[in-house]
């Protein structure tokens, strides 16, 4: 197998040019899919036999929760790549992605609480699922804080990468918390590998919303990475030329 793509990915200049072509398209596809999925789910999907309309919050809650975990997984991989190969792009990715993942975790926690009050009868309970997602949110906050407070860039990169990798252990805990322990939170409603726990006209908008969230996050991450690349590479010839020509 050729490793050229891997080395290309490690070049800020190459990534900047490649992502400039794709970021807007990916973001717009994400926006469209999110609007369709969430709009369909909130407005047109059938009501639930027990919860009535309250259940519709899953069209926001589930995509946000899925992305909160996926974003963290990508941070862990990037942290690993940085610690082993010292690839320049990895900390740029971590710095750009962490706030997005934190926002997703926050949306999942808040929407879950808003749903929990009418459904369970409480905003919050310290069960294994809720607590492990709160830990995920705090990990994101830790990574953001490390990246922004350490003056020494190399030290900040390393510290954030280490936390990203170690935090990976939390992901299986989140995923299996509802199976390993007694929790108030129900087992997963949405899975691509198992038989859906809901009929197609409820499941399909959810699937579209999840895909939409993935694309939205990818587009946002590319934009944030572009800014970060320009900032970090400001002394290189290609950035100077770009600024001279385009006046960014």
């Amino acid at each position: 197998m050729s490793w050229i793509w891997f080395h290309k990915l490690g070049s800020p200049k190459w990534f900047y040019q490649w992502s400039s072509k794709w970021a807007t398209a990916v973001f717009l596809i994400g926006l469209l899919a999110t609007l369709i999925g969430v709009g369909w789910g909130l407005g047109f999907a059938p009501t639930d036999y027990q919860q009535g309309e309250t259940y519709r919050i899953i069209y926001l809650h589930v995509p946000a929760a899925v992305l909160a975990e996926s974003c963290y997984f990508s941070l862990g991989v990037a942290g690993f790549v940085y610690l082993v190969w010292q690839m320049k792009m990895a900390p740029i990715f971590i710095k750009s992605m962490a706030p997005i993942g934190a926002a997703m975790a926050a949306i999942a926690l808040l929407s879950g609480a808003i749903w929990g009050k009418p459904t369970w009868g409480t905003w919050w309970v310290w069960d294994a699922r809720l607590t492990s997602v709160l830990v995920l949110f705090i990990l994101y906050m830790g990574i953001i804080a490390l990246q922004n407070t350490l003056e020494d860039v190399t030290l900040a990169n390393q510290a954030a990468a280490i936390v990203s990798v170690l935090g990976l252990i939390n992901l299986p805990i989140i995923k299996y918390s509802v199976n390993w322990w007694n929790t108030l939170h129900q087992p997963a409603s949405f899975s691509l590998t198992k038989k859906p726990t809901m009929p197609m006209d409820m499941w399909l908008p959810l699937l579209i919303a999840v895909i939409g969230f993935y694309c939205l996050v990818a587009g946002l991450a590319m934009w944030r990475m572009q800014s970060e690349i320009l900032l970090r590479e400001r002394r290189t010839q290609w950035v100077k030329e770009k600024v001279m020509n385009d006046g960014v």
Partner: protein
Amino acid sequence: MHAIRKKRLITIAVILFILSAALGLVMYALQQNINLFYSPTQIASGEAPVNTTIRAGGMVVVGSVHRNSDTLDVTFDVTDFKHNVRIQYRGILPDLFREGQGIVAQGKLMNNGIFRASQVLAKHDEKYMPPEVSDALKEAQKKTTTKPSTSDF
């Protein structure tokens, strides 16, 4: 792969493995503390402490809910299909509280084996369906009575 990178990779893998193992053991040891509630079987076997604030969870037994007509007092049984626990509660129950639905109650187990709850939370399962489908399912169930599984709550 370059020797230094290989060394770093192995170091990180080993650290991750050791940390995961340590965390796994800690969680295994603290299992009872991480569990949100005691099941009726655990209460029946005396695992749950008496006169201490704990949570008990299970499925509300169909036909076991008795409401006092003058007060907000209510008693019902919860089950895990092996043992039952009787729960007493005074207050307003959540909207999703109904027979055959999972609940988690916080309160104290008394010496007579009855659980006096100060808070009752409804547990929801991961299944969603439109009302028409649910009605159709109930019709079908009347014809063939199926045994409920413990994973339903």
